[in-house]
């Protein structure tokens, strides 16, 4: 019988060596009639879970292996025979990685010897020389009868002789030979791609590659018969492949995961501890008594937790959250298990189950033994404290971060392949500018047409073709932002660990999909900027207004807050601040918390592409009847008026209406969650539609339902996530509504985050009646602070020194320290006492921070500073010390500085603070704009429907969402407010250059009102950025008289582009 097992296969997790994915390799192995395939990537097990999954799908058995490239000599292949040997291999790799640092591995022969027990090892020889004999002897001594030597046909001169000599030598040294094929790709056609990745690895072009090209031929998977023909002289060596496969029976299924132990009281079982903590927590959450319904829910949940034995998981999350609370780090849980009553009373989330009737059906699914999923968001600036605590508490050998496989996307693939094929850099950047990095098709014909590129060019065509093949291949491993794997036993028994680029962090070789496939527990410790902002806001509230609140105690269901939200007055708040969200708010008209949950979930690419938004809105307005074809559907979709908006609902629809098993529904969910998976949701189409029709639904309805569900393929939100986000959105809106001053200061101190720049945040606060005070050398701290105004309950925001571009925190701190006893009197005084470099003082002066305290205009302050040196002269310091007043170092004739025009001050404000408290830059141009027939943005937004208007403004945001079919949304701003522009694809193409390059845009368009939402549909656009350059020479209210001179630098407004 022609039996053969391929043992030496490199997947593309041998980064930039292997050219095929595990899926492809196993599919090809199955097609060739192999019964098992050994994956041996270089110094890594990163691809082994993917291979495990592929093996399960194809029925070809996986032989877990690894190729060790030793620093002091040969390469050997090792295959663990059992679980213990696998653990030893993991430890060996962890050791090598720890020694060599990130993405490298340094192992030597003695390390292998120390971990050799239970491994089958195969030496990869080159020539049958003394060196080889020595290595064979070492193999024999170390591995005994588990030592083998590989015979591989290279298709080079004297090959048969080489194999013959090797075989003889092995016999002489009493080491068995085994045939391998050293596979690098699944099918012969992949050879070109393999050459290209070799180029990328060596960072050379294909023309320079020369002998570094992989020189041994035929590295694809061959049929057993072919192997038998090629190695007809070595039948025993062929038979030993099967023998090794039989010896190596280890499977990843044997890896049993154990939760880390959490015991405050060792006498209690985890379940008992959890119950105790839960009831304690419930008592403190509900001081006036736990409501009956909550007691019932908690009991139900605890019972479920006991059945599933999830108590340790909840305890772990609880201790992380408890630690964060002890350090007063704000956090908020989300994820399927997070919005349970247990999590609420433990303080993991702040969504009160007694007040909000959420669907908790997917709390933990009993059908699938899958670990629950809780993600916890922390303040982004202090998350590192929590992470280090986890490492220390659970031990660095028991806790590590997941990795993230960085894969080639369209852009990266094109750049690297282009470089390898020697295309010029600027051609590549031009091509790259045309495609979005998420594009799944790479460069398309229309991109080339647009650039007038010639596809006849061979290299260009090859590049595009190979780049498409390379897309999706892993490039390297990176660390997951916060996904922790915690175990009870040593983690390096389960998976190799490597040190991360950041010190004091370590990363396992597998990513979160791998972890999920093996059913390990993962806790996501994520960073959320808005939590930092909320923490700062609540602290300020306690300090200045004596109001002590946290996320759970913020007054809920406050009508004034909802009124504000309905007006879309939500700039700066969480989630509901984006342009799309804002335009939806007046239509959705949220009145309760659940409305906000819907709002957060509905403005996502998923529901938008699934066409769920408009039906939902119509039903909410009552203009379309809410009807359910069956009671089953009503149970699932009742809360969302018959329109599926959440992932859980999609799953329930599949189960209830189409007869999916929970397991299948879970597959559906997975394919919806990550679009990277090939095939998407589409392969479930037939099953879903047929299932629904069989259950008595109309085929059209079934089709429509499927299309809706398919929309989730891009992005859908689970209800529990939406609820957690909605809570933060509500809390931030509440703060903005009742305490705009506090909110503004907190938001400024948490920058950069969110959609809006400080300039817009400050403008918005001013419109809400908050007094904003300029940066001042005598009054500002590093952060923006609150100052009393004299009016009851209203505070003024004093802008902080952190807004000054380029100023370091250390210098600002020195300055604040120096003025603690008494404020500075003059620039000289400040310079002598603060002991801050002149460069830092100059930055402060450029930001005009000396005007409020010393009455010095920007220019005068800079002039004074220019005359100073970094160190005061000691003689003068000594002289000054004796007196109460300061002796200036020199007296000089006064210099008459030309005062800066008002426009110039504005330009300088923008340049050094990115904002101004003076007039809006556009106001200086208003005279000319009026003459040109343009109205202000406010006037335009208040115009009647379908009126033609012309407006001009600074471009704040350009957005071209993938879900909007080429429509571009632009927000422009002038001194009166903002205007929302809509550009249809045709107009966009005509005005492409203007729209993409303008800082200051003048447009003509037609007003379109839909209820309270007003858009300006652009018909023509003009770039008038050049006018910005003249602002710095203008005075307010005067027409500009052009002087022929060197043009002063204008303002550069960095518009923020979003997709």
């Amino acid at each position, binding site marked *: 019988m022609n039996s053969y097992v391929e043992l030496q296969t490199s997947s593309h997790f041998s980064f930039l060596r292997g050219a095929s994915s595990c899926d492809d390799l196993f599919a090809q192995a199955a097609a060739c009639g192999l019964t098992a395939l050994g994956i041996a990537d270089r110094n890594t097990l990163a691809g082994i879970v993917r291979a495990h999954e592929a093996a399960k799908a194809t029925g070809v058995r996986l032989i877990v292996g690894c190729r060790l490239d030793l620093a002091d000599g040969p390469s050997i292949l090792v295959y663990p025979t059992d679980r213990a040997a696998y653990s030893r291999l993991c430890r060996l790799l962890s050791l090598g990685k720890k020694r060599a640092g990130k993405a490298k591995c340094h192992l030597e022969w003695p390390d292998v010897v120390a971990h050799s027990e239970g491994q089958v090892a195969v030496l990869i020889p080159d020539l049958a020389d003394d060196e080889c004999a020595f290595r064979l002897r070492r193999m024999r001594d170390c591995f005994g009868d588990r030592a083998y030597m590989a015979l591989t046909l290279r*298709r*080079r*001169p*004297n*090959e*048969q*002789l080489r194999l013959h000599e090797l075989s003889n030598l092995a016999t002489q040294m009493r080491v068995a030979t085994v045939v391998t094929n050293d596979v690098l790709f699944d099918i*012969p*056609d992949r*050879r*070109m791609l393999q*050459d290209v990745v070799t180029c990328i690895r060596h960072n050379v072009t*294909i*023309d320079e*590659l*020369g*002998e570094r*090209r992989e*020189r041994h*031929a*035929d590295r694809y998977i061959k049929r057993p018969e072919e192997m038998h023909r090629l190695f007809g002289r070595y039948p025993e060596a062929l038979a030993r492949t099967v023998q090794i496969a039989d010896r190596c029976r280890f499977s990843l299924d044997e890896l049993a995961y154990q939760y880390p132990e959490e015991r405050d009281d060792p006498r209690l079982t985890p379940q008992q501890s959890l119950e105790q903590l839960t009831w304690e927590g419930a008592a403190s959450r509900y001081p006036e008594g736990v409501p009956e319904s909550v007691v019932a829910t908690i009991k139900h949940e605890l019972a479920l937790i006991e059945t599933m034995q999830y108590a340790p998981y909840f305890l772990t999350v609880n201790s992380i959250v408890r630690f964060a609370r002890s350090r007063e780090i704000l956090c908020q849980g989300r994820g399927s298990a997070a919005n349970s009553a247990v999590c609420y009373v433990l303080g993991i989330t702040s969504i009160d189950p007694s007040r909000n009737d959420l669907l908790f059906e997917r709390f933990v699914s009993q059908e699938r033994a899958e670990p629950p999923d809780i993600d916890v968001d922390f303040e982004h600036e202090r998350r590192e404290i929590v992470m280090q605590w986890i490492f220390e508490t659970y031990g660095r050998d028991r806790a590590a971060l997941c990795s993230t496989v960085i894969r080639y996307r369209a852009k990266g693939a094109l750049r690297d392949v282009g470089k390898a*094929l020697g295309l010029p850099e*600027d051609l590549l*950047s*031009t091509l790259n*500018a*045309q495609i979005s990095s998420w594009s799944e098709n790479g460069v398309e014909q229309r991109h080339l047409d*647009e*650039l*007038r590129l010639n596809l006849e060019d*061979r*290299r260009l065509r*090859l590049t595009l073709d190979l780049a498409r093949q390379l897309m999706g291949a892993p490039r390297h491993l990176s660390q997951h932002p916060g996904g922790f794997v915690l175990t009870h036993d040593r983690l390096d028994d389960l998976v190799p660990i490597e040190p991360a680029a950041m010190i004091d962090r370590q990363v396992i070789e597998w990513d979160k999909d791998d972890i999920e496939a093996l059913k390990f527990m993962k806790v996501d410790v994520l960073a959320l900027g808005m939590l930092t902002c909320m923490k700062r806001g609540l602290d300020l509230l306690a300090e200045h207004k004596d109001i002590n609140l946290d996320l759970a105690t913020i007054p809920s269901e406050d009508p004034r807050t909802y009124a504000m939200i309905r007006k879309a007055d939500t700039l700066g708040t969480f989630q509901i601040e984006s342009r799309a969200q804002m335009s939806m708010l007046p239509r959705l008209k949220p009145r309760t918390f659940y409305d906000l949950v819907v709002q957060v979930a509905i403005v996502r690419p998923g529901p938008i592409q699934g066409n769920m938004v408009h039906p939902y809105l119509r039903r909410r307005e009552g203009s379309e009847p809410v009807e359910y074809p069956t009671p089953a559907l009503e149970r699932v979709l009742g809360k969302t008026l018959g329109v599926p908006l959440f992932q859980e609902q999609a799953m329930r629809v599949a189960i209830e209406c189409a007869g999916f098993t929970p397991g299948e529904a879970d597959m559906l969910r997975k394919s919806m969650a990550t679009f990277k998976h090939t095939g998407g949701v589409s392969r479930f189409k037939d099953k879903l539609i047929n299932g629904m029709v069989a259950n008595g639904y109309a085929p059209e309805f079934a089709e429509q339902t499927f299309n809706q569900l398919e929309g989730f393929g891009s992005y859908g939100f689970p209800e529990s996530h939406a609820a957690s986000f909605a809570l933060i959105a509500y809390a931030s809106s509440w703060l903005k509504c009742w305490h705009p001053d506090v909110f503004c200061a907190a938001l400024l101190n948490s920058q950069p985050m969110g959609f809006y720049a400080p300039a817009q945040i400050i403008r918005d606060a001013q419109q809400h009646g908050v007094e904003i005070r300029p940066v001042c050398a005598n009054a500002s701290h590093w952060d923006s602070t609150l100052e009393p105004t004299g009016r009851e309950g209203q505070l003024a925001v004093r802008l902080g020194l952190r807004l000054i571009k380029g100023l370091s925190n250390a210098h600002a701190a020195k300055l604040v320290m120096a003025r603690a006893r008494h404020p500075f009197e003059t620039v000289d005084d400040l310079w002598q006492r603060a002991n801050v470099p002149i460069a830092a003082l100059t930055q402060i002066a*450029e930001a005009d921070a000396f005007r409020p305290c010393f009455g010095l205009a*920007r*220019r005068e302050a*800079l*002039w004074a500073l*220019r*005359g100073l040196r970094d160190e005061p002269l000691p003689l003068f310091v000594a002289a000054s010390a004796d007196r109460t007043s300061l002796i200036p170092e*020199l007296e*000089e*004739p006064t*210099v*008459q*500085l*030309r*005062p*800066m025009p008002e426009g110039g001050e504005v330009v*300088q404000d923008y340049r050094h603070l990115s904002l101004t408290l003076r007039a809006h830059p556009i106001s200086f141009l208003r005279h000319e704009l009026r003459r040109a027939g343009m109205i202000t943005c406010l006037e335009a937004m208040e115009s009647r429907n379908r009126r033609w208007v012309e407006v001009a403004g600074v471009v704040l945001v350009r957005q071209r969402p993938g879900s909007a079919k080429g429509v571009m949304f632009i927000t422009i701003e002038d001194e009166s407010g903002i205007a929302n522009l809509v550009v249809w694809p045709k107009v966009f193409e005509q005005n492409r*250059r203007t729209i*993409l*390059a303008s800082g200051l845009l003048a447009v003509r368009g037609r007003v379109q009102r839909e209820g309270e939402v007003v858009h300006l549909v652009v018909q023509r656009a003009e770039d008038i950025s050049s006018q910005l350059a003249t602002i710095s020479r203008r005075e307010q209210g005067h027409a500009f008289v052009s002087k022929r*001179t*060197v043009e*002063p630098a204008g303002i550069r407004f960095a518009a923020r582009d979003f997709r």
Partner: protein
Amino acid sequence: MPAAKALALIPGLLTDDANAVADAKELERLALWILQRTSPIVAVDAPDGIVIDSTGADHLHGGEQAMLEGIVGRLAMSGVTARAVVADTWGAAHALARCGTTATFIAPAGEGPRLLRRLPLEALRVTPTLAAKLRPMGFETIGDLLDQPRAPLTLRFGPEIALRIDQALGNVPEPIVPIRSPDVVETRRSFAEPIGAAETIAKYVGKLVVDLCERLEARGLGARRLDLLCQRVDSHTQAIRVGMATPVRDPKRLTRLLCDKVETIDPGFGIEVMTLAATIAEPTDRKQIASSLIEETATDVSDLIDVLTNRVGNKAVYRLAPVASDLPERSVCRVPAMSPETGGSWPAHWPRPARLLQSPEPVETMALLPDQPPVTFTWRGVRRRVRCADGPERVFGEWWKRDAEAISVRDYFRVEDEAGERFWLYRAGDGENAATGSHRWFLHGIFG
């Protein structure tokens, strides 16, 4: 704006990289051109100007206005747009030329300060960084600076401003260091009686070479190229040119190289003047001759190469160098005879034939597919029986070079016939897939 963005905005935009070195070189060439025509004192005013001291030269061109118009007009004809200004000082002329509106302008004597007042301060030849510091202070024109007391300005911005103002106003002198044209090392000889006989020409060539070599030595140069120009009595010029692989100033060698070509000179009715110029000369290092007791000296073959090259042409003398390519015919390339070693080598452990045929020759064979060596083959009408063979060595086409090579494969075999002769054969194609080649056999090389 980055070039790629400009390209995206304007499709089909032609772009060219800035080349500061070449610009400076061209500017210097332009200065030399003006030196020859306008005035003996000319200097480059980098990066974009030329300064001319026209004192005493303007009347040669019909006055200042005519001189300026002449310069600008001539430059315009050669495609250079220029502005020319006459002023009292270098500084003033520099400023007015860059900020003026007319192509030519003559500043009346003594009017400098008044005219300068309104110009932007960059015109004062202050560094851009200094100008960037002055502007935020509200200093925009030269006049703004002239009005201020000097001491506070110097304290804050250093002495540069005062110096530049004084230079522009003529308070301190600013001499112009004129450029000189780089001269060609040459020597000439005129004859009282025209010469014609080849021996006579050769004799004088020898004398000229000795003279030239002395001049070269005085400058530490060696000639890479010599041009010998012979002016005949009928005003025709005959020329011969020789090139050297390395800089040479050995009279014997140069004489021999030139005399090899004397035959090509047609003296006509006689030669009056002979000029020998080293049109390309490069510095030579003086090197101590190593004693043969200490070390072997490498044999210098550059002399031989020069002789051969000058006789048979530049392309005909070359060396072979390895190229890292699996295709045998691409694994060699020609390099100039004296070029340094590339450092590459052919794989020593893979036997390659001593002789590679210019192009593979088709042979008739009997062979088993897919990968057996031929049993017999017929080359150039001789049928040979294969006694032993090794192979195949599988060589893939270089797919990035041509479409035809995308999947092409050659299987090379080393075979020995019954007479003990060894040949290098290949089959186009891998023996299985017809797309990889025609599956015909070729002989590509001969061992031994």
